[in-house]
């Protein structure tokens, strides 16, 4: 293991779509991307795990409902229990919720249509593998692309999520202001991402891996992936 270059595993489930993009983004940000396969039971000694976007198992039944039973998820859960950083992006977020590693659930967008759009999100906490070193209130431009991204949670879960500062990102306007018109999918509390109480597992609907390369668009995802690499490195 070379010092200074954290190994970030990206799990490919059948139907994962943004797996190559996550690997490319990790490499662009200075990490080493390591492809992981759903049917394996080996995390190949990675320092962090990304569950990427896509439609694992076609999202048949419910988004993420089948992927959580994949053999590699046992290893991912054990890795997280040891404090390892795990990040779920879009479908990965849905899988983490289905696996019970994050609270809440993601249901069909309020407008009942898929939405692909660059949105502004506001950083809510610096206590997560994606936001370490970021200042709450900071606004980042990152794309969303999902049909089922409306965050909902049971009342008691929601109270914990809000009360314990587990919200990592909220959809907002360019100046960080919250409002229904900025809430791209109708999420409860404009929630775009959350973390677990331990602070090592995080999920979000926006795609930071699609906002790192200035040649193809805005770069609001860079600080998130830089944070993940630093978080992983600190544990190496």
């Amino acid at each position: 293991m070379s010092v200074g270059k954290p190994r970030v595993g990206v799990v490919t489930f059948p139907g994962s779509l943004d797996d190559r993009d996550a690997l490319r983004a990790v490499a662009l940000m200075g990490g080493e991307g390591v492809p992981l396969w759903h049917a394996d039971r080996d995390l190949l000694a990675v320092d962090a795990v990304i569950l990427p976007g896509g439609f694992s198992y076609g999202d048949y039944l419910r988004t993420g409902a089948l992927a959580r039973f994949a053999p590699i998820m046992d290893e991912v859960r054990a890795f997280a229990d040891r404090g390892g950083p795990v990040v779920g992006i879009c479908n990965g977020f849905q899988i983490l919720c289905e696996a019970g590693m994050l609270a809440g659930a993601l249901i069909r967008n309020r407008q009942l249509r898929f939405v692909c759009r660059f949105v502004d999100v506001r950083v809510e906490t610096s206590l997560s593998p994606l936001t370490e070193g970021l200042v709450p209130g900071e606004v980042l431009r990152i794309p969303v692309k999902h049909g089922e991204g409306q965050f909902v949670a049971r009342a008691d879960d929601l109270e914990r999520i809000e009360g314990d500062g587990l919200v990592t990102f909220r959809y907002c306007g360019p100046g960080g202001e919250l409002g229904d018109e900025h809430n791209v999918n109708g999420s409860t509390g404009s929630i775009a991402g959350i973390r677990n109480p331990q602070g090592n597992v995080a999920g979000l609907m926006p795609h930071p891996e699609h906002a790192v390369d200035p040649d193809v668009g805005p770069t609001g995802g860079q600080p998130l992936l830089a944070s993940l690499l630093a978080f992983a490195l600190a544990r190496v």
Partner: protein
Amino acid sequence: MKVDQPLHRALGLTDEELDRIRATLGRAPNRSELAMYAVMWSEHCSYKSSKVHLRALPTAGPQVLVGPGQDAGAVDIGDGLAAVFKMESHSHPSAVEPYQGAATGVGGIVRDIVAMGARPVALLDPLRFGPLPEERNRFLFAGVVAGIGGYGNCIGVPTVGGEIHFAEPHSANPTVNVMCVGIAPTDRLVTTAREMPGGSPLVLIGAATGRDGIGGVSVLASRTIEDDAADTRPSVQIGDPFAEKLLIEACLELVEGGLLEGLQDLGGAGLACAVSESAARAGMGAELDLDAVPLREAGLEAFEILTSESQERMLAVVDPSRLQEVHAVCAKWGLSSAVVGTLAAGGRLTVLLGGEVVADVPARSLADEGPVYERPMQPPGGLHEILEDDPTFAPVDSDPADAFLAVLSSPNVASKRWAFEQYDQLVQGATVAGPGADAAVIRIEGTMKAMALSCDGKGRFGHLDPYLGAAHAVAEAARNVAVMGATPLAVTNCLNFGNPERPEVMWQFAESIRGMGDACRTLGTLVTGGNVSFYNESGGSAIWPTPIVGMLGLIDDYRLLVRPGFPAAGLLVYLVGETFPELGGSEFAEVVLGTVSGHPPALDLALEASLHRMLVEGARADLLASAHDCSDGGLAVALAESALAGDTGFAVSLPGDEPWYVALFSESASRAVVSVAPEKAEAMEALAAAHHLPLSRLGETGGPRIVFDSLLELTVEEARSAHEDAIPKLLAG
């Protein structure tokens, strides 16, 4: 479907075609054989009405690696890479069931690209519907867009463009085309046109075969859909994009591993088509064992297994020594793989079921020896009167500001964001420019190059003058990639027309091909293939002749690409090219004057080519701050769109001494709006002069307002509302 008629006619074959089959076989065909000939000799598969005309298109040139006749065309883009691309229609199924019709259209074209061994990297969807005020048109539009997104978003291929238009003749028959582009190392292109050792196993990969889509090509795509459309609904296939994603990955892994001798998509005409084409291309025959085909339900008859259009299936011709590896790759991706036959020496295609021969025909007779017709042609009556009724000289009593907003908010011109936002435009991380720009720009991994892609058709122009309409479609598609700085390289097409058995439709088709051929020759863009969709009509009323051109251009360094939006204040705004009094077939004439008539604008193809060269040179020299094609809605819309895209206003005066409505809305060809930094003005003027192109300095960018002299003035935000809100408002009913 009527049952009180002979079987061959019920299957769509004529009496003469039945005689021809008898002569080929030396006996009467049985039921299975008849079903195979019916689908393979259908208009959709055999191109029997279009073949004689398509030969006139320019298809051979140094950049073309694979021309028409394969699953998709391929052009050399340097660095040992090939761009593989093709367009297809799924209009007929979409008219019956919009979501699944559009979804399976995406699936089919993607498999065509995969069949060439290429990774699909972009999708574009040119669409035509009837006017949105009608509820059924809204239902079709919403369903088709949802189907494209529902399938495309799930397979990891970005949907990056495709234009959308609305016109009454497309009410009963929407036009749903889809183009896919892929990339492959040149030395790994899978083309099956070669002799292969006999005995190579044929492996059917992917979904099980069911009763869906039986005879889809002959029932839906090769006749007009009348009032009994509901009866044809079982002929629409149901898509499973998850299975498609696995199929893409498995097939590409097989190709990369060098395990295949050939690969073929199962689309229209199913197994009958894939096996007969695979065999015929190899100059061979095949033995096919239907008992080995994995079925979704027991009890399918031979003709059903042969012609089922169940989706998400591919047929691989495998090197016998690598068979176990092929099975292993498929198993890794959770896909079934079954040896369903072998290639055989000689030319016979022999089909077995339950140990008995159920069909025995020459493979070539199915794939290559279908009938070819030279159908009668005749210009439609009344065309002369429509052409002479030229709106250019009609009295105009509307207010310039009202006319401007009416054109900007016309559904043809208005923002299509409502649709594009339902498509994943970003997956694969290569989308440098997506929908909304003149062309989509996709960078090519491992290089600084990018492909620029545009789909264009000119409905009104084609209706008035099919020759000019098709030529304009090529010119506009090429201009759209050139304004972004890309050199137009090659085209694919989808030719959407009415019933070819009507001489008027056949005349429109022939004229369109002539126009397309002339334009492609002069602009140096060869045709690598495409698709013909006939029978787009109901009750004797056809769609407008709609040849859609899919253009592929190449940029050497995508960092030098030029975008349509005014990027800053203080730039000089120029019109390249000249505006003539040409309102025939224009958006203004339709929206403001309420007429689709007159002569479409003239087109000087040599001048058009000069414009493209100038634009590419201007981009390479980093002269252009922005560039945007002038087309639907004329100069007014081009300027407004540049302002909206860059969120920067402008103040201009109109060149020439034409009336305001001509200067604003004429759709004269070969024009572009560019903005240039003041210190580069001299270089810009020299560049235009070097290419013998007229250049007018119109004014400057800057401020929150759109200002045309003393003629009209509004804020960028007012224009944005008109442009953005038009389609959502119409959809709200």
